[in-house]
Structure formats: C-alpha cells, structure tokens
C-alpha cells in the first residue's frame, strides 16, 4: 500500500473531442486551482472537431512545477477506442477510473493497477432526460468521482460552477446533479485510493490568474498599442486573434468608435501585406499565425525587412507541415523566423517563456519594431499559447511607447533651420537605424518612395552596386545594434559549476524542474533562459564560462544550437543538444534523461529515479 502523497498528482482524462469533456476538465482543473494548490493542465487534442481521441492532463504539484508530469497517476478511461493503450499510460500502482455501467472487457485488464468503476452511463440515464446533452453530462460524473477520491469538496465545485456559469443557474444545477451523483456513488460504495490527496492550501493561489499565452499575448498587444491586426485562422494561433476580437472592443474605444482595425484576411499573404501597409502608413500593426502561414508571409516579410517597415508577427508554433500535426506543440520554426525570406535576412525574435513574458513581450514588440523599423517576431508555441497556466497577474509597466526615429513635420522644420536634410536610408547616427517619416506628414521634404533594396541613402531608385552593398551592410549594423536592445537572458550562476543549461520558451518550466531533479541526484547546473534573438553578449559569456552546455529545444535538428554555432563556432562546439520533438509538451524526465545520456555519468537506475521523481 502506498502512503498518499499530498498535493502531488497527475490525472489524465481520455475522452473523445466534441464529447463535452472540455467543460468537465475545466471544472476539475479550476477546482484544484481554487483549493490553492499549484496546478497546470495540458490539452492534447486532435485536429478534428468531433469523435477523435483527446487527452487532458492535470497536474497538481505542491512544489509548484507546471510542466507536464512524466508519469500519470490516475487515468479517466472514458474513450473506448484508446482504452487498450491508455491502460498502459499510467504508472505501476496507478489508478484507472472507468465507466462500469457495462463489465470491463478482458483486454482492458492490466496487472498492477487499481480499477475503480463509476456507472456514469447509468447515472446520466437516470438523471438527464434523453437529449444530446446527456452524453456530455456523462463527463460530469467522473468529475464528481475524482472529487471524492482525491478530496475536492462539493462546495469548491459549486463555487467553480458559479464562476463559470454565473448567469445560468439551470446549467449550474444540471451539472451539479451529475457531479454530485458521481461523488456520492464513490462515497456510498466506500471506494478509496492511496495514491494522493488534494489538500487545500489557504490563500495558496491568492492573487494568481489562470490564463493562456494567446490571451496574454493579445492583451499585451492591446496594451502595446496594436492598431491594425490582420490574420487568417490557423491553429494554434487563432485564439490569439480571437482574444483580440474579444478584448479590443472593450479596451479600445474612443467615443464609441474603434481605435483599432481588425481584419480577417483572405489568406496569410494578404494578412502580411495589410500589416506591412499599415506599418508603412505609421500604425502599430501585427498578425499572428503558425508555420504554414509564416511560409506564405515570407516574401512580404523580406520586403518589410529591406524596406524597413515596422511590423509584428506572432508565431505560435505547431507540428509542421500544413497537413502535419497542427494541434501538437513544437519549436521547429526558429530558423524559418530567424532567416525568414530571401536574400541576406536576419530578424529580431522575442521569446517569452511564461504568461507574464507573453504579455510583456507582446507589448514591447511594437517598440522594438518601431525602434528598428523592421519585422519583429514574437515566438510562441502551442503549449504556451493554448494551455492553461497559472501566473502572477498581468502588470502594466508605465513607460512611453518607443516610436524610434520617427520624424514629424515639426522636426523637419527644425532640421531645415539647422541645415539638416531628411535622408530616409542614411545612417546618420552610425547605429544602422535611419530616420523615418510616415505618409500624411505634410512637410515638403517628408515624402519618399519606398521600394525593396534597390535604392540609395535618399530612397532614390538605384541599381548601383555600392548603394546596394551599403544597404546590406547598414542593415547588418542595425542588427548588431539590436543585440544590446532586445531582452537579455535570465541567468542563474552557481559557484564552481561547470555545466550550463540553456533553454527558451515553453521548455523553461520543465527545464527548471529537470535541473532541480538533477541537483537532487548530485548534478548541479547553471542556467540561461534565452529571451531573444539576436544572441546577446551574455550568451557568449555563458558559453565561455562552462565546459559543457546543454541546449534544450523542441525540434529534431537543433535549430537554435545551429544559430549559436553560426555566431560562435568554437563556443558552439561545447553544446550538447537536448532535443524533444514528439509534439507533446515537454516533461522534466525527458530532459533529465537526455542530459544524463549526454553526461554518461551515472547508472540507469539513477536516471530512472531522477526521471520519476516528483
């Protein structure tokens, strides 16, 4: 018999999508959150609307780890089509909750796990009148059963229902009926388990919010002054645009009129075109998409790079290609962003790793775009964008927008008095960044003609080889200037430690956990959280300071490592890549395993322990 662990549990709910389980899972997750227990959830869903398998994994972690847990303690086996596999997803000694309205088929029996039944079908047949709703309410039964088994009280459940369906008492009551029936069934039959208990932590999550990166990004963009949004639906980026559609009317009205334009474009080529047109005309403009959309935007982004037009591109990465795994997470478009488009191009990429940085970087992306007069990427992924994360609330840093070297008519007037001329593509300050006017500027010297790279410093048409080379060299200088402007990495150094770990984006959370586990078995590491490209000086120093560096990324080809190696080939040679690319949110165990493999320092048993801990 195990002794139940307190507030350390992972539950996986296996259902079909479109069966109404999303609502049930949400209630379960929010109930645990409401109890004050640190928790996270990962939705592993198919690219389909109804009838395909979906898994929702909830983790409660007293230690506050939010990455996907390696092991599953309890499985809600509510999908017959995947059940035969699902029973092997859980750990030895784990628990399977199934619908025992009908007997368990022999092929679904497995040794070493505990089966608990709840007659969900029978319960809803009794409680819910025959209607399409009945099937959905079946999922509420497992919520009740789990609540009883792990110690979520019905008061908490009711409170969550009220938060969720506040204005619909009928919905609250009908859900509650089924949840309560599941709860009481377990109670009356004296069903117990010894895996884990959930115990409320008073004020544990006080002041915390639950949100997704796509909400955070949308809000950040709005607070950053996003003015024109053009987008084309694609998972997992659509919900960012939909959040903008949701919040913009509420946040950005002046006398009942919109201070923004949001346009659902006919394709990503048009979306990029509109964004660049608006950026050229002087507004903060953005789009959001994922890999396939970014492919279509390539040409326009290249033009914006050479014509030096501020524009922001949120890329929520997923498994490629177009008919790939659109609902799975990846960091495999790093190079597609970094080198986006033809010609010698390099782009600025901001890389948030949690909800707060999704908000902050989204807000700041417009400053960066205007400062450098260039397309800027905000690199996210499905795990960050679409999964629920608990977080400190968003906070608005009160700072003025950085409009960069934007020249007004008054400034031109002044310049003229000083005998200074406006030259659109002239590097007056030596930082590679020229001065910019926008259409509508009435000064007689404001206007210029925009074209790709075939121009001289005065924006006049030129195919002169020296002009062209100067344009390319200046753009490179500009990129170098960006190194000291983009967000710096966050670094953790420990005395005498010679092993470094670098990660970025959604790998941060599992990497943090992995490092704790490694420390617990004696392998101390330093850490660098990469938050932007171009690579900054601090990254170089970190590489120099360590003997071995593990670089964690979610793709097969070590794309970020390649960027580092391109920059500093010799230092790059120290990198051992930790590559995770199965499309699922990263687990700490996988990182631990690969780091140990790299270190080849210990026995398989230690690896196993470190993987399974926590």
């Amino acid at each position: 018999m195990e002794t139940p662990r307190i507030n350390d549990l992972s539950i996986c709910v296996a259902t079909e999508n479109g069966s109404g389980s999303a609502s049930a899972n949400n209630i379960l997750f929010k109930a645990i959150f409401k109890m004050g227990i640190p928790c996270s959830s990962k939705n592993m869903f198919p690219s389909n609307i109804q009838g395909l398998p979906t898994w929702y994994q909830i983790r409660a972690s007293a230690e506050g780890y939010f990455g996907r847990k390696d092991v599953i303690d309890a499985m809600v086996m509510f999908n017959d089509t995947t059940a035969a596999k699902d029973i092997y997803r859980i750990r030895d000694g784990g628990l399977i909750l199934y619908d025992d309205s009908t007997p368990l088929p022999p092929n679904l029996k497995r040794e070493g796990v505990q089966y608990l039944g709840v007659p969900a079908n029978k319960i809803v047949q009794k409680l819910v009148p025959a209607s399409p709703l009945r099937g959905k309410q079946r999922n509420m039964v497992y919520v009740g059963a789990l609540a009883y088994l792990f110690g979520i009280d019905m008061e908490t459940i009711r409170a969550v229902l009220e938060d969720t369906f506040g204005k619909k008492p009928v919905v609250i009551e009908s859900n509650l009926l089924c949840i309560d029936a599941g709860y009481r069934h377990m109670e009356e039959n004296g069903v117990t388990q010894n895996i884990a208990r959930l115990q409320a932590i008073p004020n544990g999550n006080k002041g915390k919010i639950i949100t997704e990166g796509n909400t955070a990004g949308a809000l950040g963009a709005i607070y950053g002054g996003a003015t024109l949004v053009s987008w084309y639906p694609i998972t997992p980026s659509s919900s960012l645009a939909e959040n903008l559609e949701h919040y913009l009317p509420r946040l950005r009205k002046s006398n009942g009129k919109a201070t923004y334009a949001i346009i659902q474009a006919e394709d990503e080529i048009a979306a990029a075109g509109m964004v660049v047109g608006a950026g050229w005309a002087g507004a903060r403009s953005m789009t959001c998409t994922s890999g396939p959309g970014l492919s279509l935007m390539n040409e326009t982004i290249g033009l914006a790079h050479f014509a030096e037009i501020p524009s922001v591109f949120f890329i929520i990465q997923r498994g490629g290609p177009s008919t790939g795994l659109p609902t799975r997470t990846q960091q495999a478009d790093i190079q597609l962003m970094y080198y986006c488009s033809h010609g010698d191009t390099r782009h600025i990429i901001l890389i948030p790793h949690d909800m707060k940085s999704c908000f902050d970087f989204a807000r700041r992306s417009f400053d960066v775009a205007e400062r450098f007069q260039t397309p800027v990427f905000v690199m996210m992924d499905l795990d960050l964008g679409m999964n629920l994360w608990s977080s400190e609330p968003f906070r608005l840093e009160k700072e003025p927008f950085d409009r960069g070297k934007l020249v007004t008519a008054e400034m031109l007037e002044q310049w003229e008095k000083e005998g200074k001329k406006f030259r659109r593509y002239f590097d007056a300050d030596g930082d590679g960044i020229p001065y910019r006017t926008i259409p509508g500027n009435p000064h007689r010297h404001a206007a210029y003609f925009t074209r790709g790279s075939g121009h001289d410093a005065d924006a006049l048409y030129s195919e002169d080889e020296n002009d062209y080379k100067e344009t390319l060299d200046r753009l490179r200088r500009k990129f170098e200037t960006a190194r000291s402007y983009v967000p710096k990495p966050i670094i953790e150094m420990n005395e005498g430690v010679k092993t470094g770990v670098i990660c970025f984006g959604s790998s941060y959370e599992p990497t943090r956990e992995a490092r704790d586990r490694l420390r617990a078995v004696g392998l101390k590491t330093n850490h660098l959280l990469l938050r932007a490209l171009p690579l900054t000086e601090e990254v170089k120093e970190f590489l120099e300071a360590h003997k071995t560096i593990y670089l964690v990324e979610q793709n097969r080809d070590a794309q970020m490592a390649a960027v580092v190696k391109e920059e500093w080939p010799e230092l790059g040679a120290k990198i051992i890549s930790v590559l995770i690319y199965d499309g699922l949110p990263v687990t700490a165990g996988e990182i631990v395993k690969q780091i140990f493999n790299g270190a080849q320092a210990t026995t398989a048993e230690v690896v196993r322990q470190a993987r399974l801990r926590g």
Partner: protein
Amino acid sequence: MGRRRLQQKSSGKPDYEDKGVAEKKVNRINLTEKDYEGTPSTLCRGCGHDAITASVIRAFFDSSVDPRKVVKLSGIGCSSKTPAYFLGQAFGFNAVHGRMSALATGANGVNRTLIPIGVSGDGDTAAIGLGNFCHMMRRNVNITYIVENNGVYGLTKGQFSATADKGSRMKGGKLNDMPAIDLAELAITFGATYVARSFSGDRKQLAPLIQGALAHKGSAILDVLSPCVTFNNHEGSTKSLKYIRENLDPIQDLDFIPYYENIEVDYKEGTDQEVTLHDGSRIVLHKLRSDYDPSNKMQALAAIHAAVAEGKFLTGLIYYDPSRPDFAEQMNLCETPLAELGQDLLQPPAELLDEINAELMK
C-alpha cells in the same frame, strides 16, 4: 464642353518652393502640371504606360489634389514602376508582386484621410494578385486602382498574361488558347463600386475617369488598355496599338466637374446623364448608347459580354454604385486616423487590466 482648368489663384497657397514660372498655368492650389510629375520614366519609348502616367498627372492637376495627401502604391512590373514617374511629392510604395491590394487595405485602414492611388499590371492583378484583388474589392477598400493592361508580362519579357485574349498570338507566334480574364467584369462581380475601362492613348476619356475615381470613396477600378510596344505590338496580337484603336467601343464621352466648380451644364435630354460622386464632384456622361445606364449591374455585365463576343473593347464608365460604404467606414473607426493616435488613446488604462486580471482569477 472640353476639360476646364481653373486659373484662379486661391488663398491657402501651400508652401511649395517658388517655381519662378509665373506664366505657367496653375491650379486651385497653385501648382503647375509640372509639379505633379515624378522622376523621368525608364520605360521603353512609346510604352502605353507612359501615356497613362501623363493622364494621371493631368487628372491630379485638374482636380487640384494636394500631392502630400496622396499615397501611391504598386506591385511589380513595368506598370508598377510608374508611380515613381508622377507626383514626386507624394509618398510611394513599390511593393511585392500582386500584393498592392493587401498593402493598400492596410494603409487605408490606418489612415483613411490619405488619397490612395494604385498602379498595377495585368500580370500583377489578374494572375499572382488575383485573390487579394478580389478581396480588396469585396471589402470596397477606398482606392483608385489602375490596371495598365497590355496582355503580357512586360518586365519579364513578353510571356502571356491572364488577360491575353483567346486567339491572340505572341511575338514568336505562340497562340493563346485560354480565355481572357475580363477585369471590368471581374470588378463588377466582386463588389467594386466604380468600374471603368479606357485606353492609354485616349487622355480625353481617361483623365476624367481618373478624376472621377479619385472623387469616389470605394474601390474604383480602371482597366486601361496599354500597349506594350516591345513585346505585344505585332500583327496577330489583340493588344497591339493598332488592334486596340480599331476596336474601341466607347459607351460615353465624359466630362468631369470638380466639387469646387459651380458649373451649370446644359444637358441634352435623353443622351446626357450626370453622376454625382462622393465628394460632390460630378461626371457628365454624354451617352453614345442612349440606353446605357452605369448603375445597372446586369446591363453592365451583359454589355461587356457582348463586346467581348465581337472582339471589341467597351470603354467608359461601365459601372457605378455610390451606395456601398467603403471599408474604413464599415469598420466604425474613430475620427482621427488610426496612424495618428497617441499612447493616451492606444494604451487602455491600467485599471481595465486589473479588471481582466480579476476575471482571470476565477
């Protein structure tokens, strides 16, 4: 009733450099026609596109448009180079092949006080950019959109374009056996609200049509036949200068009267029709076909079809619908152009963020 050019000196003289050519004709804002020119053309001598540029210059001059309020947009092609050759004092953007529609939609969305003029080619519009073009019209984005239609890709040296007529031959003899996309028909179908066709060599018709397009709020599409003298001007081509000239089929002669001119017109009963444009300007149509009514969509489409069947080019103001609001209007935008809003209006107060935080705590 030819073109009128007012010579009055208006007040509100813009602060352009002194031209020192007092005897030159100036328009209402004190500019000469020369002030509407751009850098010298680099196109082939005799190219139809240059003639269109001259009409564009004439139209802007005649309408006394302040160049500093104009934005010029284009895609890629010989035609798309032309915005550099007119209105040197206006902002211009020579963008990506076929994507002018999208860029214009973005630019117009954030500053609808600017007057957008776009120049594109038949390759740019009818092939690579066709989808975006259709959607721009579907939205009724405010723009004067000129397609300089020569039936070939000029800049890439003479391949057929999607507006090459069935039965037309390439310079090397190759026969085009695909039906042509008729841009006027397409424009009407997809929701453009001002649709005209003209010929580069007919400034008398083209310039007022451009003036009308500038006065119209919405997608104004001008399909302008414009011979490519280098790659598509031979015997056997249906877009040669000679062939076009011989097969023009104008539906009206027209005059443009700007909103600021208070001119009474003597109408000929039955054959003259006045069309009032959004800014109060008027186009007077002297009908060459007494029964043609440009507000009748089905008639317009039927007339285009009939002309195509006869191998003719229907020209004039083919279709006009003043009733549809333009895209910027549909979006319920605030008065100030979005591009000119400051942080005070662009950044919501922090209290609203706190409100949202509180909602996300549940």
